[in-house]
């Protein structure tokens, strides 16, 4: 287990960044999570999570050039840092270990 473990929403955000392959910033990240999970996502929660992931060293961000269609503001692009990739792999491994030998049907109450 790494120094920081990942929460469920953090995993979703990291996986959305990975799925977007280099074009990730907050707006498409929200769309990606909503499209794949069917959940409604609070936009502010994504920004707060991205900030936390950056503080943990799991992602890195950079600002693009300002554009008029954004009111003269740039986009903050985000990509997964090596520590973030490791954390994602650890989270997946842990989940797979926990699922091993379990039949999803056995979760139903008898």
């Amino acid at each position, binding site marked *: 287990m790494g120094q920081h473990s990942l929460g469920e929403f953090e995993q979703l955000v990291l996986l959305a960044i990975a799925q977007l392959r280099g074009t990730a*910033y907050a707006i498409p990240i929200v769309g990606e999570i909503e499209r794949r999970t069917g959940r409604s996502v609070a*936009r502010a929660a994504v*920004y*707060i999570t991205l900030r936390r992931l950056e503080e943990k060293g799991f992602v890195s961000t950079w600002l693009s050039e300002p554009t008029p269609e954004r009111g003269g*503001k740039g*986009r*903050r692009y985000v990509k997964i840092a090596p520590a973030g990739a490791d954390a994602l792999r650890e989270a997946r491994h842990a989940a797979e270990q926990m699922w091993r030998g379990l039949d999803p049907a056995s979760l139903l109450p008898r």
Partner: protein
Amino acid sequence: MSNSRTPPRIARAILNRVIPEELRDSIDGDLFELYEARRGAAGAGAAARWYRRESLSFALRFTANRIGRAAGSLFGRGNAPSGLDLALGARMLARSPGLTIVGAFGMAVGVAIATGAYAIFNSYMYPKVPLPEGERLVALAKWDPRTQNDDEKVLHDLLVWRRELRSVNDVSAFRTVGRNLVSETGAGELVSIAEMTASGFRAARVAPLRGRALLDSDERPGAQPVVVIGHDVWQARFGGDSDIIGREIRLGRISHTIVGVMPQGYAFPVNHSYWIPLRFDPATTIEPGTGPILFAFGRLAPGATRESAQAELDVIAGRIAAAGPPDRAHLQSRVVAYTDIFGDGGGGESKAWRMLRYMIALLLVVVAMNVAVLVYARTIMRTGEIAVRTALGATRGRIVTQFFAEAFVLSGIAAAAGLGLASLALRWFDTVLAIEFDGRPPFWMDTGLSPGTVVYAFALAVLAAVIVGVLPALRATGTQLRSAIGSLGSGTKARLGRTWTALIVVQVAVAVAILPPALRLGWELMSHGLQKPGFAQGEYVMASFLVANDEDAAAPANANSDAKERARTTMNALLARLAAEPGVAGVSVARAEPWGGFFDPIEVDREGQPRKQVRVVWSTRISLMSTTCESSPGEVLRRRTPQSRNAIGRSSLIALS
């Protein structure tokens, strides 16, 4: 309708206020991009509404996040207050004695009121019944939604409940009756007795210390009169006599055999030390809504809950209503917490009480805010010190922790003093409570300083320290700090700032606004207290006169006619005897107290003699339970003493004059 190309200005300004600086541009840009897309698709109005909703969501989430991060940085690793912080805090307080005294006194009063109120509210609203599995004791009540009162003539229902209710075991009832406990010398002392079904002892689950509790057979008409006494009575009146069981005492006209002594502290069902059986004559037909005033209770059966008992009671109530008179069909049967036995039948605390509770807790917040203003004035004078510490590598969290520790020393002292004040106030409250309940409050009421109250005071001290120390420190280590670091050595003076200036202005305005109504209220209370009755009250004695009715609870109403006649005879005998006492100018009887003002209480000893010079004696009520009230009231108003009520045959009443 707005058709602006730019998002709503106020919402955007709020966003800029709450979003951290490093994220501000990118979020503003993202929301602008989405706003533009919505404006093109759905129009400017819809886009503006969406933008406002998003802004609100951002404001709430980022504010919550900010609070969480501040708390994390304050109590995070390496930032916990140390002993050195506390020592430094104590030194800082010693350097500002004026601020320390004013701040500590203000907060101490706030803590005293808040903790005192907490203890009293807990005692009243969330009392614990100090009996085995006391939380499973319940009261059974008939609630009249039209009068918003309990219908207390529940004898008919009680008999049905005892027969049919399965969710509640040991369905019982009691009423409090007054009797003269007549001593061997013939002197009488009014005592309060629980006339209770034997099942009440089973419901309480407390075994007698000596002898036995009441039995079902004691309830039968014609059974030998028996009494169970409390530990305090056994010790005080019988000197702890080891042969107490089997002794006879006279309660009213009837001699009772003592069959048991209950353990120390036992006062079930309310505040009782004598228990006699509540008798029903099985031959008597009890109509709904007739019979004596009774309080019904029981113990939840194993596995039953208040809700399941209520459901069962509802079914039974439906049957009772269908078979009973139509004018009682609207009455509701309720299962409530046992301690609500004298409540409003609805159980639980009312919204008004809950609101009052929060308002009192808020009082400390207001006081702490006032102290915070004072402390902030000092904190900004230390901006240079904060800047130097920051330049030397101290984090914001570390500096805020230091200020928190300083404030905690102050609020801790205030909390300790506040607890002391609260303890004194609670002792006084206990005295008032004891008077209200004729000398002994209900056994579940404990208004002392419990460990929970001390923890509450500690929590208040932490809250006050956060307000007094952390808020000014966060302000002083925010944007002001950068300019302070820049102006180090320049001699530029720190300024109070708009927010705090406004706070001080509001504080003064509120104080000025509150002062006139507070003065008026104080004057009204004081003038009421100082009001004179208009007669020489020091020359009068007042006593309550009660006549015991020794009939069975379920006896027909006309059975009381004998008691009324006895009361009339006894009253006349008493009046004649009093009038014949030397020093008595006259005797009269009144239905109510002719003087409704305040009386100073006095203490009397066990013999009924005043402990000090008597001027006015305070009694809570006058009770004339019988007739002969036709005499002209007001001619003779007597000084009163609770201990000398119904003091037939005693000279103590006269000795007061």
